């Protein structure tokens, strides 16, 4: 059937029309081979735009459509649906990118932009002439979700999905869920007790019939595709039988080994057998193999001796599990930036220079000081506390973080509030800021409240902190509001340090094949419109794993991810694009090059009989084929056709490129 191509040039308002002369492109397109219709329109993706295409398809018997507009990564699916609704196979659409690749970067060269747009349309027409209708492969969706990360984002998403009736596997690598929020004392700006609002949710998770809680576990391998992910999970051995352990804590009392307590940011000690914190879920003890005397030296075993429930089991093996899920939500959170990298502030050297998280633990009643705000060098209550914002954040130096942590300013205000409400005028509080970013709901009012409490705000960043003989600290800072160089002495200096994606999120991203953004956080599909989707269908991201944000925004985003995952699973089936490899058996020599290069085991050599002779030929396993084309390029004979990205189509584009 002879191609009858309709070409639509979008203005995208002035985004394209501002630099590309769309009328000239329309005129050019109308003269291209096989083009029966060429039009321009302000917003082709709009309702009337799409309607126009549908009407044209029916009236003019178009059998191929080209939309020259924004990137196909933006709207290819939109226009594919438009074609479907007009009864045309969605794979008969070609998108020419004349915005992201043309009108925007070449804004200042309108003539060149127009010429380039013509060329891109010409190439699109060449390809479209060779496009074939394709039917998508329909796959059923497993109605189960995997949530990776048991912080507030993971907990929120799990509960929402579980409440909707889906089975949820919540995997957390620490012995307990709770994440960073469990370490906080109060949350801004309402000053709720963090544990009080978090713990009920943690308990809900543990009790929910639809949630399978896998703590002290890690995701090892992920294969498959949307609706049908196969995930291998390794449960690390606690050396404690969780069925028997009652969380009574006797073993902890008896254990002779003291270990720095990570939960208290090493401000206190725990034992080799331990509960991460009193409200841990699950409330089961864990033996830290690295410090346990039995594992290190073969002695002790006191915990085993005194455990009434006989729950200690030194022979426990890792538990390997394989689960099948339809969707995955990644909520792996953050780690604080290592403040010792900012050497001029002396973190790690001066005892009274601490980070914001350490201050949280100090103010926390369940923390290392029982809630007493004292300094670590002499256990005295501080008379002067200085906060330095943006430590490690918004840094241009190598090793620093380029971005804003989004939570530091209001966290500092919260700490200041707590100090002032506790000590009143007995304490002097200074906040050295570069900016005060209090953009959230209730944050501006909170700032004014804190300011009215007499907290001193210095608009400047100290260059260097020095320690005095009594372990107090002193620094100079230039305040731009008063144009004065100030010398500040403080009993405690709190560094509000930045946040980074959790360690190991790199490897996880690689396992899941989802990209990371320039700052290392997991990359969303579109910064404005698709903040929770990723490049992999069926895998969503939520919380600080996607980018710095506070608890409010984390909970909102986790809910969004749960809704998206839930919507997918509720549909019951998904369509995988029919961009697959096809082997021409009659000409295949069975050499096996394609099998060697396939990263998915989706092609294999089988024996076929032909005219009494046995032959080895390649065969594609469609369910596993991702359409990457490695086999297509490996086949020297050209036996393998890559649907929708055929050699002929690519060559046609190359030819068309050369014509102008």
């Amino acid at each position, binding site marked *: 059937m002879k191609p009858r191509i309709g070409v639509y040039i979008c203005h995208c308002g002035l985004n394209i029309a501002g630099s590309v002369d769309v009328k000239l492109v329309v005129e050019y397109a109308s003269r291209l081979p096989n083009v029966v219709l060429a039009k321009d329109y302000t917003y082709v993706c709009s309702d009337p735009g799409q309607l126009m295409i549908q009407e044209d398809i029916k009236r003019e018997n178009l059998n191929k459509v080209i939309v020259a507009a924004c990137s196909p990564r933006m709207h290819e699916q939109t226009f594919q649906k438009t074609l479907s609704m007009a009864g045309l196979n969605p794979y008969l659409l070609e998108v020419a990118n004349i915005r992201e690749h043309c009108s925007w970067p070449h804004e200042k060269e309108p003539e060149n932009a127009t010429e380039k747009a013509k060329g891109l349309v010409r190439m699109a027409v060449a390809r479209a002439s060779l496009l074939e209708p394709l039917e998508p492969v329909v796959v059923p969706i497993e109605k189960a979700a995997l949530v990776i990360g048991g912080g507030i984002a993971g907990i929120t998403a799990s509960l929402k999905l579980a409440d909707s009736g889906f089975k949820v596997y919540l995997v957390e690598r620490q012995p307990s869920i709770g994440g960073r929020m469990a370490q906080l004392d109060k949350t801004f700006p309402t000053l709720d007790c963090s544990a009080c609002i978090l713990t009920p949710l943690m308990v809900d998770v543990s009790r929910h019939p639809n949630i399978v809680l896998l703590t002290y576990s890690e995701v090892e391998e992920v294969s498959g595709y949307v609706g049908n992910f196969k995930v291998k999970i390794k449960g690390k051995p606690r050396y404690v039988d969780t069925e028997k352990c009652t969380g009574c804590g006797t073993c902890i009392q008896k254990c002779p080994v003291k270990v720095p307590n990570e939960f208290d940011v090493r401000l206190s000690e725990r034992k080799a057998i331990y509960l991460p914190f009193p409200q841990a879920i699950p409330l089961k003890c864990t033996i830290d193999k690295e410090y346990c005397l039995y594992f290190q030296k073969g002695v002790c075993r006191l915990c085993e001796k005194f455990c009434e429930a006989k729950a200690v089991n030194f022979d426990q093996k890792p538990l390997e599990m394989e689960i099948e899920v339809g969707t995955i939500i990644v909520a792996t959170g953050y780690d604080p930036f290592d403040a010792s990298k900012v050497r001029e502030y002396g973190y790690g050297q001066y005892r009274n220079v601490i980070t914001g998280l350490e201050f949280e633990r100090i103010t926390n009643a369940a923390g290392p000081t029982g809630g007493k705000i004292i300094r670590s060098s002499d256990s005295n209550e501080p008379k002067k506390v200085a906060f330095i914002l943006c430590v490690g954040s918004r840094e241009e130096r190598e090793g620093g973080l380029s971005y804003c942590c989004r939570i530091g300013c209001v966290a500092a205000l919260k700490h200041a509030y707590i100090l002032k409400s506790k000590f009143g005028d007995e304490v002097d509080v200074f906040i050295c800021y570069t900016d005060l970013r209090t953009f959230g709901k209730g944050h501006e009012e909170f700032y004014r409240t804190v300011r009215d409490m007499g907290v001193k705000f210095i608009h400047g960043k100290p260059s260097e902190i020095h320690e005095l003989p009594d372990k107090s600290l002193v620094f100079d800072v230039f305040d731009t509001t008063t144009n004065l160089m100030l010398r500040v002495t403080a009993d405690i200096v709190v560094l509000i340090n930045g946040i980074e994606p959790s360690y190991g999120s790199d490897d996880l991203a690689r396992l899941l094949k989802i990209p990371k953004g320039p700052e290392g956080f997991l990359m969303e599909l579109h910064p404005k419109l698709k903040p929770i989707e990723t490049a992999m269908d069926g895998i969503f991201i939520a919380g600080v794993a996607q980018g710095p944000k506070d608890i409010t925004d984390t909970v909102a985003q986790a809910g969004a991810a749960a809704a998206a995952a839930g919507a997918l699973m509720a549909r019951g089936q998904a369509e995988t694009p029919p961009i697959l490899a096809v082997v021409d058996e009659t000409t295949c*020599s069975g050499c096996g090059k394609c099998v060697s290069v396939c990263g998915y085991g989706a092609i294999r050599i089988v024996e076929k009989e032909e005219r009494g002779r046995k032959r080895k030929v390649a065969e594609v396993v469609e369910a596993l084929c991702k359409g990457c084309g490695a086999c297509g390029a*490996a086949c020297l004979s*050209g*036996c393998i056709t890559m649907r929708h990205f055929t050699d002929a189509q690519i060559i046609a584009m190359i030819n068309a490129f050369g014509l102008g």
Partner: protein
Amino acid sequence: MRKMSEVHEIAKIEIAIKEHASSLLSEGAECIIGYDKDGPCFIEDLKEVDKLVWNNHCIHNLTKYLPDFEGKVGIVVKGCDSLSLVELIKHNQVSRDKVFIIGISCSGILNEKKEKYKKCKNCSHPSPVIYDVLLGEKPVPKEEDHSDVVELESLPHEERFSFWERMFSKCIKCFACRNICPVCFCKECLIDRRESKWSSKFVSTPEILTYHVTRAFHVADMCTACGECERACPMKIPVLKLYKKLRKDVKELFGYEAGLNLEETPPLISFSEDDPEP
């Protein structure tokens, strides 16, 4: 004049070939691929075994014929031929257990003018690397000679292109080079496929160059420099100068030489984390 010991040696080998051929055929082999006085011959009958010869005119690479046979086959291979055989086995074109390899160590083959073929002057594998029986005295291997490649590499780009343009202006697209090459085993050549628009039937310089670059790239990690392509070319085009460049690059980039090891995976269908940048 050849030494008496050499003549004696050649005669011994010929006798041994005939013996092996007879016993293979008696055991039910489908065919023996060897040489007769005119060139390649296919012996299927015990009575014809006497036709088989061995002398220093046995230039043909007989492995080209192997993929056509389904049953057990005996084949006479020289050192250079054995490398092609290794590649054919690696690529599923020949089953190792279906072929009985009569390996002959040779010290060079002479052309009609009784001169050694160019490829035999710098033979790096005079003894077969794979065989079921090995006949003949093993000569000393020499280093593969890349000087002609290096010479071209030293020319400026325009001159390089002129050289190839001149070379291939004589090409008549007879495809003898492809047809005789043992590792060109595709059932349908990409160049012949009309639908994919890779090539057309024109006999024009761009088309000719496309064909040769295609073939060179395709055999890049399989070419064993057996030289049959050059020998078969009716226009006497020194095509080996092109394929040796690929062998040289594949060796430099990936440390790989075709035909030496059945276990080694060809580099263009494998990769390593620390591959060099293109």
